[in-house]
Structure formats: structure tokens, C-alpha cells
């Protein structure tokens, strides 16, 4: 009984600590829905008493640039997720089944890629894409974002395949499947949790990507939403209400995705960065 009560005391401490930690998020959302009169008060209005969704109209729903950027980001994020998945799923399988000596050598580029500063990729890619007419295009940005997502996807997926006994595919081959069919029909369904992790995480990563966005797609009609939000800061300066409304809208798809796939995301990441 004593022990039981002590555990709930820890819960209360935990709630307080986490509340303090995520206070900035609370502040972002409340700022976005406060009427102007409650925004600039001293002391600040900690708990808004009335709501005003006008900031969302100003910043997002009545703002053609922001709407355009949102759709650009959806296209680029979905495209990158698909390309990454199609290339990474067989690659991670191959790496799980190669001889170890070759695995470490061939995996090296994927490990190094994760450590590469994005600006080091953005600069030459801009130079090359500018000559090829691929800047300010969703295709160029998908190509670039995949370079960031792919190595991560392979590294995270590999342990999922390592957990599958080889006999499973060998049995399929006895039944007359070729290697590709065995992979497609037998192995892939088993690693579905890994695929979900990679999908969710690639989307999250690409949606939030900024460096390639601002360098490869700076033109207004091609901007992803992160770049649009940044130029919004320049335009609206200290109009914090609309700015926080725009920030909240940019965050929402990620937060929703995270809530839905939370277990997959954290489990997969832990597997990818510690165990492997």
C-alpha cells in the first residue's frame, strides 16, 4: 500500500516535470488562439479566457502562399516516403543477408551519410540541379530529401530482417518461389512494423526539412512549408498571433502522425540507433 502510494507520487512529479517541459508548446497554441487584447498584457495571460481563430485565417487559410506551401510539402513528403521505401526495403534485406565482411564495407556509405551536414549536400546539389533545371521543382527536392532519408531507412530496417530466420525463405524456395518472390510474399509482410516505422519517420523528417528546401526551392511557388514559415517570420516580424498560428499548422501533421505511430517510431528508432 505504501509502495503503491509512492508510485503515484512519482506520477504527480512526472506530470509536473513534463508540463514544464512542454510549456513552450502550450504557449505556441494559446498564443495562436488569443485575441489581440490578451496577447500583449503584463503580466501575460497564462490562461486565455476567450478565443479568436482570426490568426489562422490571416496566416493560413486566407494566405495563398501558405496554402501552396502546405500542398508542396505534402507532395514532396509523400514522394520522398515512397521513393525511400521502394529503395530501402530491398536494400536493408540485402544487407541483412550479405556476408558480414561485405556488409560492414557496403554499409559504410549509409553510416557516413547520416553524419553529413545537410549544407554539404545542399551546395553541390544546388549547383548541379541549377544546371539541370531541377531547382524550384518538387522532383528535385524529392531527390534531395531521399538522400537524407534513405541511409536512415536502411539502418533502421536492417535489424528487422536480421530477426527473421533464414529457414523461412529457404522453405519458400523449396516451394518453388524465386528469391524475389520469397522476399515479396514471405519476408516483407513479416517486417511490416519496420516498414511503418520507416514510412512514418521519413514523412516526419521530410516535412520538417529546411536546409534543402531553402537552397533548392527558394522560389515562392515551389517552397516547402518550412521555408514559407521562415519567410513568414521576415514578413510578419512581430505579429506573433499569426506567426504562432502558422507554426501550429506546420506542426499539426507531424503531431498527428506521431500520436498514431508513436509506438512504431520510438521502438524503431531505439532499435536503429542502439542495438544495430
Amino acid at each position, binding site marked *: 500500500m505504501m509502495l503503491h502510494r509512492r508510485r503515484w507520487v512519482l506520477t504527480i512529479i512526472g506530470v509536473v516535470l513534463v508540463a514544464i517541459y512542454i510549456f513552450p508548446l502550450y504557449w505556441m497554441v494559446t498564443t495562436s488562439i488569443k485575441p489581440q487584447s490578451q496577447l500583449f498584457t503584463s503580466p501575460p495571460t497564462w490562461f486565455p479566457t476567450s478565443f479568436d481563430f482570426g490568426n489562422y485565417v490571416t496566416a493560413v487559410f486566407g494566405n495563398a502562399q501558405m496554402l501552396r506551401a502546405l500542398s508542396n510539402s505534402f507532395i514532396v513528403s509523400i514522394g520522398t516516403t515512397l521513393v525511400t521505401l521502394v529503395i530501402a526495403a530491398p*536494400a536493408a534485406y540485402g544487407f541483412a543477408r550479405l556476408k558480414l565482411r561485405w556488409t560492414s564495407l557496403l554499409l559504410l556509405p549509409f553510416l557516413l551519410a547520416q553524419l553529413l551536414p545537410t549544407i554539404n549536400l545542399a551546395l553541390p546539389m544546388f*549547383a548541379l540541379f541549377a544546371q539541370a533545371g531541377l531547382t524550384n521543382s518538387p522532383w528535385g527536392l524529392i531527390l534531395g530529401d531521399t538522400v537524407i532519408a534513405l541511409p536512415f531507412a536502411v539502418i533502421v530496417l536492417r535489424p528487422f530482417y536480421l530477426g527473421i530466420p533464414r529457414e523461412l525463405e529457404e522453405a519458400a524456395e523449396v516451394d518453388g518461389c524465386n528469391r524475389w518472390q520469397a522476399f515479396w510474399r514471405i519476408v516483407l509482410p513479416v517486417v511490416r512494423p519496420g516498414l511503418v516505422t520507416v514510412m512514418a519517420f521519413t514523412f516526419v523528417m521530410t516535412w520538417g526539412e529546411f536546409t534543402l528546401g531553402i537552397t533548392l526551392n527558394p522560389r515562392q511557388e515551389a517552397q516547402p512549408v518550412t521555408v514559407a514559415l521562415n519567410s513568414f517570420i521576415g514578413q510578419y516580424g512581430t505579429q506573433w498571433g499569426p506567426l*504562432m498560428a502558422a507554426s501550429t499548422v506546420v506542426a499539426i501533421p507531424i503531431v498527428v502522425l506521431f500520436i498514431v505511430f508513436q509506438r512504431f517510431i520510438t521502438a524503431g528508432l531505439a532499435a536503429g540507433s542502439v542495438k544495430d
Partner: protein
Amino acid sequence: MTAIAQTRPTVPRGTAGRRLARRSARYLFVAPALFYLLLLMFYPLAYTFNLSVFDVNAGNFLRGGAAFVGLQNYLDFISSPDFLSSLAITLIFTVGSLVFQHVIGFCFALFFNTGFPLSGLLRAIMMVVWVLPAVVSASLWRWMYAGSYGVINAFLGLFGIHTTQAWLTDPSTALPAVIISNIWIGIPFHMMLVFAGLQTIPTTLYEAAAIDGASAWRRFWSITAPLMRPVILTALLLGFVHTFKVFDIIYVMTSGGPANATNVLSIAVYKLSFEYFRLGDGAAAANVLLVIPLLLSIVYLFFRRREETSL
């Protein structure tokens, strides 16, 4: 799954020809990914070297005909007065962020590892901060750091410190302010890694130690700390490389200013290449930026391999 595996006979190893076909099939699975990186990562990186030895600028970039300058761009960058200050700022930003991210993340992980009711939910809520787009966090902190009506000054006011300090536009406070925001962003990453590591330590070890009369402090230093050493090293190495290359958060919060107070190397590269459009100089600076993460990745890979063989 295992039932199938047990009832089927194993595949006969077959002829040499079949073995070769099987082996090359494995390479076919990895070939597209390798080719992708070769074309869109290694080729661009090699192209950076090419750019860095020519005087490429706005005038001759698309037209061609930039003069070959050898290593002059590198020398110019390294000998410029901004280089050493940028390097120092980058290191202060990286180490300052990393130490606090890791220590605070570690404490949270230890706390959550006690497994109290709702701890899983609270942990998940913290992770939201980590998946937030960097631009969102950055714009949010800009508002909190605002001089008048910023919530941080209001918070200080609760403790009797009344100030209208504009944290991000004062050169003496901009760097610490950016570091604090980045600590906030990085805590969940370290918490997650450490928590995953703590979960692998068998509780029987602690129970045995407790029976032997070891205090909680003693249990931490004699069981947790040594067993967590590989996790701590991985988190710090990965964290260092990831923080060293940060561009987006700082760019959105301060653009490297005020008066270059937060001008980390990645922003210096960006300014040279995309604001002054001196691509040759930018490429040389980019390669200089690459040196430290590259050295650390060698350490990291060495460490990884040692871990792998010891398993």
C-alpha cells in the same frame, strides 16, 4: 513462423552455379540504394571538391569559365578573421548543447525507468518535441525570447527580475539563448537512447545489490554507469555530429547574427554560397566544415565495430 521452419527440410546447397546466382541476387537487392547514394551523394560531394578549386561566382556560375585557383579558396577561408570565431562558436554551441541535453535526458530516463503509472504516456508526450519541425521550434522560441511581452521575461518577472532584454538581438545573450532552445529540442533524443539502454539492464542486478546493502547512489555508479557506457558514448558521438552540423534552428532564430554572435560554420557556408553567391569559397568552407564530423565518424565506426565484435 518457427513451426514452418522446423517442418521443412533445409534447401540443399546446390551446384556452384546456383550458389553464384543466389549470391549475386543478394547484391541486386542492395544495388539500387548504393547506386542512388553514388549518384546523388558521392557525386555531389566530389563535385564540391571541383567547385572548391575554382573561382565560381554569380557571374560565371552558369556561363562557365571560372578560373582555376587551386587551394586559394581554402586559404582565404581559413585565414579570414571570421573563421576562428565561427569555429569557436560552433564548438561552444555543440558542447554547450550536448552536455545539458545528455545530463537532463539521462535524468529523465532514470526517472521514467522507475516505471510509475502513466510513465509511458508522459515519455511519449516529451518525444513530440523531438519530432517537431526545427523551424516551428525556432519560431516559437523567437516569440518566447521577445523583449517586451516575451514569456521568458515575464517568467523572470515572477521572481522579481524585471527586464525587457531582447535575448536574440543582443550579441552577448544570443548564443546562450540559441543553445538553451537547442537543449530543449535535444533532450528527448538522449532520453530515448538512455531509456532504451536502461531497459536492457536486468533488474535482478539491482535487487542483488540492494540485498547486499548498496545505496541507490552506489547502485548507480557500480551497475548503471558501467553498463551504460556504450550507450552514453553512442549518444554523445551521434549527438556531437548532429549538433555540429545544425543549420536550421540557428538560421531561423538569428540568421547567424547579431554581429555574427551565432555565426556557426554551417551558416558561414550558407552565406558564402547562397547570399554572396561565391560558390567556390562556399565549397571550400563546406569541405572545412566536413573535417570534424568525418574524424568523429571514424572514431564512431571504430567504436561500433568493437561493439559488434564484442557482442
